[in-house]
């Protein structure tokens, strides 16, 4: 026994301490508990892994029987195989860094203890998700991280857009969870167990399904679940809105860990998926469509966090594409490298936003290179990693995916390469707009809350309007001198994690993860290594950077001319393909309208209230007649008694009397 249960227990303790007593604790104690428990968890992961390596077979620990019903036996069971080991390291490692960062980023926020309590709770559920050795325990973590995501998106709960975004994330995820639940039921019916090893062992015996059968249905339903959690088309709409949450949350939950749970689950179920080629094709197509759509939207957005949110969706699409073509190892590789550079991009964006006093619109930035050189330096590492500059971490995983895709379908490959170019373009665009050229913030009076573009009415500010006043005051005290004009560098607790992540983004790819994962994943066919594929992939990335440089540095007037020329098409992409509007029109509005006119006014107000009120008014009506007997006059009562007595006597007399 390696006491695996301690890994999620540490953050749970942190959650309980901060959640129950945090209100009374000083901020330093809250930070210590929050960061300390996650770091403890990370160290325990390291100790455990060093003890149980090389992990050719899973290390399983059974604690108790959870559900025993008929033939179904579901134990409380944690297991570590190489797949879990990778996820554990990513979750606790990046989690620790982001916790450290958050102590700086959230330093002046109200609800400091609440934030860290939620964040620790998230760590607990995420670790349960990756450690659980059956689908049901995974599902517990799955739902738990969804809950924490909801709580943290709506962290600024006084701001309407934040609580709406939280609701949206939760409700859209319900659709996915519905699919996941159905998939679990079918797995129980088919395999009589939910334990991963047993399911996979049996699934390996099943013949490959070339027509739609049980395996295909299970996999398609699992895909629905994964699409909800990992923001794949058509359930991607919640992730951009989730940027309402504080930036560390965006980095940890909505970029590095939770949203990759869908990919993890798909890889976990790889053996089943391999038996259902139709479902695999569906996974690949969903991934590809997501990658293309999100990347194109990313080119048009002005809010720095929105750009990275669409970038996340697009990269997740890449991972699904990889899983769909059977390249589960590269998919997980991309999960890891993406966790490095996307967490870094978000944290860096957070540092930029912090230094700009909560300005998120890139049109008001520019030239920040001079003011915040450390942030720029670290972000540049993430930039070249996501753009796929050779020998960075992103390049390795992306080339692995592209290679596998080419052997599956050259058409998909070329679309994916094009998307890689678009990816490089939009990231470079955001970097050029933010860090190069002249600083455009000074033109905006008292940088911050007032100069936003009007057309974007989704709040793109970390802060609720309700806390705005307080916030302004806090900043006026804290950065009195610097507040009006100059951006300022973030403190060490913020750029320290950035530096670590920057190093990982650059060198993180040299570790051949797919090879490491081979014992944990079903054997994949090895494809011939073709050098020209890598040259094309690398060229696409560099080309994207060059185009962005031309458009945003060399000839800054070009983008406007181009958008004017594109007109309607640009508007369509800028409006995120109007998917939200389509959902509003087809689902949300009919649902709200139907609820309002039928369920509320018809059923509730009409029928149910009608019944209750009807009972009342009937009683009143009957009472209205009965009240005429109640005269208050004693003699009347006497008369009634007399009449009653006479009536009884008469009845008895007619009936023959009492014998």
């Amino acid at each position, binding site marked *: 026994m390696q006491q695996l249960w301690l890994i999620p227990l540490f953050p749970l303790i942190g959650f309980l301490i901060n959640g129950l007593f945090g209100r009374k604790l000083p901020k330093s104690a809250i930070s210590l508990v929050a960061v300390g428990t996650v770091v403890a968890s990370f160290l325990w992961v390291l100790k455990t892994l060093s003890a149980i390596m090389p992990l050719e077979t899973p290390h399983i620990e059974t604690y108790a029987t959870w559900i025993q019903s008929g033939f179904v036996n579901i134990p409380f069971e944690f297991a570590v195989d190489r797949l879990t080991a990778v996820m554990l390291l990513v979750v606790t490692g990046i989690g620790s860094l982001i916790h450290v960062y958050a102590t700086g980023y959230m330093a002046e926020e109200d609800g400091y203890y609440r934030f860290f309590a939620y964040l620790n709770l998230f760590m607990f559920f995420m670790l349960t998700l990756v450690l659980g050795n059956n689908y049901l325990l995974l599902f517990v973590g799955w739902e738990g991280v969804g809950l924490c995501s909801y709580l943290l998106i709506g962290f600024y709960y006084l701001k309407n857009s934040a609580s709406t975004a939280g609701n949206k994330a939760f409700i859209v995820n319900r659709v996915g969870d519905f699919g996941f639940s159905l998939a679990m039921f079918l797995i129980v019916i088919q395999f009589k167990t939910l334990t991963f090893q047993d399911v996979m062992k049996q699934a390996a015996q099943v013949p490959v399904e070339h027509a739609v059968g049980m395996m295909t249905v299970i996999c398609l339903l699992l895909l629905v679940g994964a699409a909800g959690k990992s923001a794949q088309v058509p359930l991607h709409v919640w992730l951009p809105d989730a940027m309402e949450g504080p930036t560390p949350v965006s980095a940890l939950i909505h970029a590095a860990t939770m949203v990759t749970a869908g990919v993890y689950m798909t890889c976990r179920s790889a053996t089943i998926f391999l038996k259902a080629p139709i479902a695999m094709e569906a996974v690949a197509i969903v991934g590809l469509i997501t990658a293309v759509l999100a990347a194109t939207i990313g080119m048009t957005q002005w809010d720095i966090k929105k750009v990275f949110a669409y970038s996340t969706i697009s990269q997740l699409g890449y991972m699904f594409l990889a899983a769909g073509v059977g390249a589960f190892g590269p998919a997980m590789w991309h999960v890891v490298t993406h966790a490095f550079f996307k967490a870094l991009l978000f944290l860096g964006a957070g540092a930029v936003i912090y230094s700009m006093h909560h300005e998120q619109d890139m049109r008001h930035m520019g030239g920040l290179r001079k003011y915040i050189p450390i942030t720029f330096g670290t972000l540049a590492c993430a930039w070249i990693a996501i753009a796929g500059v050779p020998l960075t971490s992103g390049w390795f995983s992306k080339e692995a995916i592209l290679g596998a895709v080419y052997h599956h379908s050259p058409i998909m490959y070329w679309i994916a390469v094009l998307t890689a170019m678009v990816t490089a373009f939009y990231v470079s665009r955001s970097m050029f707009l933010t860090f190069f050229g002249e600083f455009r913030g000074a033109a905006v009076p008292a940088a911050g809350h007032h100069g936003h573009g009007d057309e974007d009415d989704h709040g793109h500010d970390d802060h609720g309007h309700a806390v705005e006043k307080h916030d302004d005051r806090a900043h006026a005290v804290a950065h009195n001198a610097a507040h009006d004009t100059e951006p300022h560098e973030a403190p060490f607790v913020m750029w320290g994690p950035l530096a670590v992540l920057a190093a990982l983004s650059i060198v993180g790819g040299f570790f051949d993860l797919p090879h490491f994962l081979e014992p944990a994943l079903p054997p994949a066919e090895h494809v011939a290594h073709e050098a020209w594929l890598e040259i094309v992939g690398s060229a696409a990335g560099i080309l994207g950077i060059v185009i962005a440089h031309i458009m945003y540095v060399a000839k800054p007037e070009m983008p406007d001319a181009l958008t004017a020329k594109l007109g309607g098409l640009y508007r369509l992409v800028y409006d995120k393909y109007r998917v939200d509007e389509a959902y509003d029109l087809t689902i949300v509005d009919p649902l709200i309208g139907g609820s309002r006119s039928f369920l509320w006014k018809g059923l509730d107000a009409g029928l149910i209230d009608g019944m209750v009120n009807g009972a009342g008014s009937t009683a009143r009506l009957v009472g209205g007649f009965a009240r005429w007997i*109640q005269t*208050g*006059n004693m*003699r009347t009562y*006497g008369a009634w008694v007399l009449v009653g007595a006479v009536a009884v006597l008469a009845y008895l007399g007619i009936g023959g009397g009492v014998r």
Partner: protein
Amino acid sequence: MPPAPPAVPLTAYLIVSAILFSLGAIGFVIRKNVITMFMCIELMLNAINLSFVAFSYKHGTVDGHLFTFFVMVVAAAEAAVGLAIILTVYKNRNTLMADDIDSLKL
């Protein structure tokens, strides 16, 4: 055992009792003065007492006597309380007419 008195049939007692009770009941309904109504109640009670005693005598048991004593005790208590209530009502409302004392009405 003393020699049997000349026989008065049970029916005679019961008829007297019924007449007394009817007088009381009708008086209760038609008279307006609370004290008169109260006296009517006493009349009804005593009519019942008479029939109890008559039955007791007829059947040669003491049950009827016992009931009669109970009724007398209750009637005494009722007279004490009832007259006190009537006095209080008169003090407060300055009337003893039952028709005027109808504030229990809805």
